[in-house]
């Protein structure tokens, strides 16, 4: 396994004097999102099943929900050990945004100690009517992550404040790349970026920090293995190659009609195949 590679560590002096390193990557690394194993993995046995199976398949890292790490907040080393035992890295955590900024600070402290890279902000956050008051809260969550050396991004999503490509690009225009990253979810882009495509978004945003591969089909919705839906994966892989994307590529599926491991393995092998064909890995 290749360790996370630091290119010219950029030292950012924080207000409190702590130095935080911005992380860069030398290649694409494929991670697994916990969601196909279930939304609530706060029970340790469920978490360990997920870790075992993700590692068996060949994933290099994992993404979990904020609530999954709550029992581990005071024990980052123990959480890290669970991953290390299986040669998995900690991609990061999905933060459902709220007004509990103290909670976000605690979460990010844990993430930094456990070696996470990414905080993806994704949760109910109002409507267009609340745009101007919600953005400062989203920015604040990202700033807190930044102060702990964690790269935050906003997940465009059905029914969140930025659902369509226009809404997401407006959000990106109104946030600062210094502490607020760009991500894209190919499944939600396929479903929600009406009139646009996922690959189009990627080509428009070569500054992409983080990407999720998820598929969508009108019949199986977002409960679709990567490759079985309508997302144009060869075009997406070509776009990724074209912008020379390096970093985490996390595979997610909302739920499944077959065992999680079978779905996650199928998506993993399909993704590797398509990425290889495109010369992206």
């Amino acid at each position, binding site marked *: 396994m290749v360790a996370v590679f630091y290119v010219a560590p950029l030292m950012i002096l924080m207000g409190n004097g702590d130095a935080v390193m911005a992380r860069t990557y030398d290649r694409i690394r494929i991670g697994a999102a916990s969601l196909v194993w279930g939304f609530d993995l706060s029970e340790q046995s469920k978490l360990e099943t997920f870790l075992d199976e993700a590692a068996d398949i060949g994933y290099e890292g994992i993404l979990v929900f904020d609530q999954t790490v709550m029992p581990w907040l005071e024990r980052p080393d123990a959480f890290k050990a669970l991953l290390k035992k299986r040669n998995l890295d900690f991609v990061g955590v999905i933060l459902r945004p709220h007004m509990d900024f*103290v909670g976000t600070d605690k979460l990010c402290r844990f993430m930094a100690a456990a070696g996470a890279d990414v905080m993806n902000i994704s949760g*109910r956050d*109002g409507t267009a009517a609340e745009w101007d008051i919600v953005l400062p809260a989203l920015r604040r969550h990202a700033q807190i992550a930044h102060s702990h050396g964690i790269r935050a991004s906003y997940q465009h999503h059905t029914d969140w404040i930025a659902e369509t490509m226009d809404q997401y690009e407006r959000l990106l225009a109104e946030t600062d790349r210094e502490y607020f990253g760009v991500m894209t979810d190919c499944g939600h882009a396929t479903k929600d970026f009406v009139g646009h495509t996922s690959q189009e978004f990627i080509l428009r945003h070569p500054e992409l920090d983080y990407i999720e591969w998820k598929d969508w089909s009108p019949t199986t919705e977002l409960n679709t293995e990567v490759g079985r839906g309508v997302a144009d994966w060869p075009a997406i892989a070509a776009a990724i190659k074209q912008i020379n994307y390096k970093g985490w590529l996390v595979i997610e599926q909302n739920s499944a009609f077959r065992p999680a491991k079978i779905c996650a393995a199928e998506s993993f092998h399909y993704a590797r195949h398509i990425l290889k064909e495109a010369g992206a890995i």
Partner: protein
Amino acid sequence: MGNMSLTYDRIYLGVSQLVWGYDLSRADRLVQCLDEASEIGYEGVLLFDSTLPFWYNRPGELKEMLEQRKLKVAAVILRPSLDFKGTIQLAKFVSEIGGDRLVISGRDGTQTEWKISLPLLERHGEIANAHGLRANYHHHTGWIAETMEQYEQLLADIDRKKLGAMLDCGHATLDFKGHSALEFYSKHSDIVEYIEFKDYSPKTDLRTEVGKGTCDFRGIAKALKEHDYKGWIVVEQNGTSGTPKGSSQESYRFIREELGLP
């Protein structure tokens, strides 16, 4: 819009579900709380937002359960978030079961986030308003307005058409360092729209029956009479070493017999 403070003809005495527990989303646990509150003689209950989604599709049933026990919804506690659609849903439901007040109380940042959090809190209040409800901000340990100075600053900074004042006597006793619940009430009796009777003692913390802690309830009762307070007084206790019914009964007796309220 523009629904200002609600008016009442007298004092109403209610009790908070919290004495029975934080999670009453299971119907049998809620029924026990309602039964016992009503048996003691309380006229209403304060419920948490998390208690209600179970009933979202059947407001009529919950309303009937309350009416059968001659209970009103004194208020519903909203833990503020960014989920404004959720607040719309909650406000609609509260109005359907005959409630008229949301008490906003939950983790909402620190002084650093003051300018971020206040407009969000106001927006929840505005949504309550739009559904015919009044919203009040609950000062609280660890919330953005904890001390009396912070709460007064919040009340000065927000649009009080959207969000009104309340007083939690227990948290005031614990958190208003150098001040007291009585001082706050005497100073702000003209804007206090809703009151919680909760007691505090260094030994039993906020798990104290009303009258057993260090809050000056006799002084507060006198001030309420002087200023002719009308509206809800809700008894709350963050859990109990006795039974919920026993403790709520003790607080009820103290308020009625010792304080002569309502």
